[in-house]
């Protein structure tokens, strides 16, 4: 079946603009995770969704970052007033609830000029 998909694959934006990153998880996967991969910081957890709720937002770096999930499926990560330090690859992963293996999307490479 189809894997996790993310769009866009690349996004270049100017400092101060808002961006939206989309994740389409594998059908039937209740759990969804966002991670960020940046130079110097490695891979970092951002937020965890269980269905449409987000019981763990502890990794969001600032209040400029927010995310939502609708219909237990698609998730959108929004970054407001982007800064250069937001430049990174944003990864989404999904899995069945409490399952051990996460399935990763190809990522969105965000470049803030």
């Amino acid at each position: 079946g189809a894997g996790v998909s993310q769009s866009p694959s690349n996004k270049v934006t100017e400092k101060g603009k808002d961006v939206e990153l989309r994740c389409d998880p594998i059908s039937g996967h209740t759990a969804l995770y966002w991670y960020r991969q940046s130079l110097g910081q490695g891979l970092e957890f951002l937020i965890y969704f269980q269905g449409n709720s987000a019981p763990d937002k502890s990794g969001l770096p600032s209040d400029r970052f927010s995310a939502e999930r609708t219909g237990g499926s698609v998730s959108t990560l929004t970054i407001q007033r982007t800064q250069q330090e937001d430049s990174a690859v944003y990864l989404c992963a999904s899995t069945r609830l409490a399952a051990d293996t996460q399935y990763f999307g190809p990522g969105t490479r965000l470049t803030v000029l």
Partner: protein
Amino acid sequence: AQSVTQLDSQVPVFEEAPVELRCNYSSSVSVYLFWYVQYPNQGLQLLLKYLSGSTLVKGINGFEAEFNKSQTSFHLRKPSVHISDTAEYFCAVSANAGNNRKLIWGLGTSLAVHP
């Protein structure tokens, strides 16, 4: 809370030589352990995982790892590497209970296999 330390940021090795990529972790709860690989310009791929049982786990592409609870380590090994093994390797842990299985990552080890 959990943390992961990958002891080598870069590992150069010649083709057909053995390699070991080191990973240590700390956690206040029981964890699952993972190694992921990221080939150049590609996404993350699960290499192998330790959940329970035998402490020696085998993964794809001839890789294996050994869980050592007393040393809190999960080192990755391959007896003979190929040029195609050149990639970034990430060690990660997650809690093994509850619904939230967020992964906590090491900073990665860049494996460069030379002819």
